């Protein structure tokens, strides 16, 4: 049969061209997410197949064992690169090259069909990594080409055929299918958790690190990237209280700060009177870290937000450390959204005596000048609080400069910074401050996180960017951990108005952290608002959002018959719409036939049906004989239609059409016709 022969025949060049376009377009979105050599190998094979002359290309028989061998070799290489094979990332990489290999060996329409399926699946895999608007848009051309490729596989386009027509047709079909897609998207049951365990492979991402050395935060602040977004219930806290607590660093080796190597669980600090409670939802971009950020100090454990994406399942297993830091058991791989409550304040009680000892440690024989200065200052000031005030006063009065580009520090960075350079960024101030306190016998530690956040006027939520990364200090005074921000002593506007306001002119402040609202920045904020809505409305459409929406619509997925009725109605409406609109288009394409059919229908209802093979003139003649009163009208109607349909090309079509339209309009109605006959 034709079907069998067509699917076994070798592919025409036009069919190959459609397929290669599909392969490239499905590989394109993955380019940033697969290793470079994988990207090159996966694209080189189709290109070679298309560009190399046929006799350079191994014979089909050689290809039969050469290509599987190549696939095997690439699988081994991918296994070596990732260290494992049966996991998400290596599988995506392998699928990527497999699509290329499959194209290289595609010979028949059946191979082509398989290739189209593989390419379609490959198109999905980019969403493992990113679900932005851009990622959604980049799949659309691939979908159009998928339709073109399928049409070409069905029937090889003749050489020189218009390549746009299949794209337009596919586009129209996708538009027609959008109601179906939207219906399924809204109604398809979502799962609360994954079907099987998700591999914890996440690449390196921008964000805070758990190691703070001079320069590590200042390099982060060069990034405009969004760390998280916050929706406050009620007014947001004032800027000076926007301390988003992240990793707490207690260990110091003379140069870098790191967290304690063990982890102690803690309890939520008891609320003290007069503390303001704020409630908010955090939408955290994936950072590849376990940290969840909360305003100081958390008053609740994070709850999965009602509209959070389902991967927030990690959110269900959060622990609170003794340092009042929130940790998710597994690093969120995707955007997560959680509801959080915080009691605004700058202190909380310590959990035990152990903490005091852990936070007094200093590397022996390091920072000698700092240590002796601290001893001397502590002796001069009467109390611990007096000492701290004196240190902050020193930061304020001495010519310390807050800058993103401090001078290079020598082998004793704290000494160099405090006594020689006096130029530094928040990590310098926080680090030096803690070293001074510890040397004076006051338990202290460095806290990193974000400070500040910008309210997007276009949507009313807060954006916290990587450029808001900050480090401050905590000191244990009278059994309470108290926050001190030495940076604020040097550059008060850093805390009040953000990085851009605090840094002197000429510093490389990231564009969006600047204070002035240029139109470009406003545009970027608009764009961020759109992105945020996208994240919440589309990417974040999960089981809870689905339930909420259905409740609003008055539909309960638990009552299957309701769903069946709604689905059946929707399907009927959709089919009627699509088929009806096609008929409408056909009518518009041939108005004369439509007018003639309308006249025929009316006469038939009045009792004079047109015989199947009866021509217009004869039929009109019959009508004229039956209703002599309207003879001229019927004759004119028949003649006009006959001329339009069968007349020479030279007839004035528009005039005739207008005349025909007038004829049909003048046609008496059925009752009058019946009465007259």
């Amino acid at each position, binding site marked *: *049969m*034709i079907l069998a022969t067509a699917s076994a025949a070798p592919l025409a060049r036009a069919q190959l061209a459609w397929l290669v376009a599909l392969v490239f377009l499905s590989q394109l979105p993955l380019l940033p997410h697969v290793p470079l050599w994988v990207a090159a190998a996966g694209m080189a094979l189709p290109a070679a197949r298309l560009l190399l002359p046929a006799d350079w290309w191994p014979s089909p028989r050689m290809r039969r064992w050469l290509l599987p061998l190549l696939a095997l070799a690439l699988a081994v290489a991918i296994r070596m690169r990732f260290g494992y094979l049966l996991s998400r990332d290596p599988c995506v990489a392998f699928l990527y090259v497999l699509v290329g290999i499959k194209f290289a060996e595609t010979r028949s329409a*059946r191979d082509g*069909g398989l290739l*189209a*399926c*593989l390419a*379609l*699946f490959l*198109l*999905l895999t980019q*969403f*493992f990594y990113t*679900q932005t608007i851009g990622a*959604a848009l980049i799949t659309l051309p691939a*979908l159009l080409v*998928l*339709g073109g490729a*399928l*049409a070409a*596989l*069905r*029937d090889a386009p003749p050489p020189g055929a218009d390549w746009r027509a299949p794209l337009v*047709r*596919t586009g129209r*079909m*996708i538009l*027609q*299918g*959008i*109601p*179906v*897609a*939207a219906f*399924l*998207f809204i109604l*398809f049951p*979502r*799962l609360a958790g*994954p*079907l*099987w365990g*998700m591999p914890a492979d996440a690449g390196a991402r921008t964000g805070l690190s758990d190691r703070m050395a001079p320069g590590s935060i200042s390099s982060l602040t060069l990034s405009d990237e969004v760390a998280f977004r916050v929706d406050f219930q009620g007014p947001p806290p004032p800027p000076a209280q926007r301390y988003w607590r992240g990793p707490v660093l207690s260990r110091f080796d003379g140069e870098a700060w790191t967290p304690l190597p063990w982890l102690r669980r803690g309890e939520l600090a008891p609320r003290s009177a007069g503390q303001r409670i704020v409630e908010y939802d955090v939408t955290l971009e994936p950072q590849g870290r376990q940290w969840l950020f909360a305003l100081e100090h958390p008053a609740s454990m994070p709850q999965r937000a009602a509209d959070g*994406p389902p*991967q927030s399942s990690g959110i269900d297993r959060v622990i609170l450390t003794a340092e009042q830091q929130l940790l998710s058991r597994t690093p969120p791989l*995707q955007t997560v959204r959680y509801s959080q409550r915080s009691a605004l304040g700058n202190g909380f009680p310590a959990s035990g005596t152990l903490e005091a000892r852990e936070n007094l440690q200093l590397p022996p024989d390091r920072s000698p000048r700092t240590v002796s200065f601290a001893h001397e200052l502590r002796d001069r000031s009467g109390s611990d609080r007096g000492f701290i005030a004196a240190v902050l006063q020193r930061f304020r009065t001495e010519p310390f400069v807050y800058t993103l580009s401090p001078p290079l520090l020598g082998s004793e960075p704290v000494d160099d910074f405090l006594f020689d350079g006096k130029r530094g960024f928040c990590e310098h101030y926080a680090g030096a401050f803690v070293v001074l306190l510890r040397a004076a016998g006051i338990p202290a530690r460095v806290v990193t996180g974000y400070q500040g956040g910008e309210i997007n006027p276009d949507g009313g939520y807060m954006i916290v960017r990587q450029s808001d990364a900050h480090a401050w200090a905590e000191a244990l005074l009278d059994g309470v951990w108290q926050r001190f921000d030495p940076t604020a002593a040097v550059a008060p506007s850093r805390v009040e108005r953000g990085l851009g306001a605090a840094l002197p002119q000429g510093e490389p402040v990231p564009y969006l952290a600047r204070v002035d609202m240029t139109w470009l920045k406003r545009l970027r904020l608009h764009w961020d608002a759109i992105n945020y809505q996208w994240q919440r409305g*589309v*990417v*974040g*459409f*999960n089981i809870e959002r689905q339930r909420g929406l259905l409740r609003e619509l008055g539909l309960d997925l638990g009552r299957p018959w309701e769903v069946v009725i709604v689905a059946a109605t929707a399907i009927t409406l959709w089919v009627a719409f*699509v*088929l009806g609109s*096609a*008929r409408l288009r*056909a*009518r518009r*394409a*041939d108005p004369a036939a439509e007018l003639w059919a309308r006249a025929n229908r009316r006469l038939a209802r009045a009792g004079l049906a047109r015989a*199947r093979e009866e021509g217009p003139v004869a039929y009109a003649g019959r009508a004229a004989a039956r209703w002599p009163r309207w003879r001229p009208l019927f004759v004119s109607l028949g003649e006009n239609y006959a001329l339009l349909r069968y007349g020479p090309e030279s007839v004035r079509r528009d005039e005739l059409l207008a005349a025909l339209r007038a004829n049909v309009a003048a046609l008496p109605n059925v009752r009058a016709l019946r009465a007259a006959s």
Partner: protein
Amino acid sequence: MSVAAKVASWPARWQQRIWRRSAADSGSVVLRHRRIYILPTRRGLALIATLATMLIASMNYGLALGFALTFLVAGLVASALLQTYRSLAGLAISPLAASEAFAGGELGFSLSLANPGSPARSIVVATAQGRSVRLDLEAGATQIVQLSAEATRRGRQALGRVTLWSDFPLGLWRAWAYVHFPLAGIVFPSPEAPAPPLPAGHEGSDARRSARAAEAELAGLRDYQRGDALNRIAWRAVARGAGWYSKQFEGAGGRGPLDLEWAALPPSLAAEARLSRLTAWILAAEREARAFGLEVPGLSLAPGQGAAHRRAALTALALFPAERRP
């Protein structure tokens, strides 16, 4: 029809409606949803399986955009279903004619396909034998489809059930409809080859014709056959000892009409062989422009000439009952 009879005939009516096994379609058939079936093709199934896999991946990883992509393609597949349906719906098919052929030859059937004002369609018309014609119908166009069938046995050969199918536009769905017209062509018996020469006809009764025959130009010799007139024998060849031959003349209108008789054939010949020989003789007579009469059991045709006569004779042979023995 009584209610009981209606109920009793219900399965048969439904079987006919589903499979159209009997040739009950008459006149022009317009394909509507009652006649149109649609199922995914192998490629369509592969794509749907891919979509199912994508759905599972999206569910597991909670990929909202994965869902969106999957459902967008599902919408495309659903839209393709309607388009494929639309490429058959509304099509009007009517039977036109069936040709005649000799057994072993090709029988032709023609149908007319009208596309009433809808978009251009690309469809395939296939016979039960598996022959098919692919055609593109422009909007509003009417086209005549020629279907051919191998003429296997003499007699009436029906076109049988015709399948119209289309997998336009994406090849993911295959819509088909059966039409079964009572359109049948006549298959004449296959002429015997090589056939023995025509039997001699009656001698003309009037002298002028025989005189003309004598003047006729000698066309050649052929093997002598019992019953050949003595004056036709090539005596010279017989004398030379070359064998027995009869003379043949060209343009001899004078030979009388032939009597092609079943009964005159050698009794050892089987019925079908007789029909084949008679067919061959009818053709030979036609070639030589000689009138012939046909005498078979149950039917006798007066001598005559011309296409209609030949057709009547051949049809009589084609429809000669197979089981009847003289």
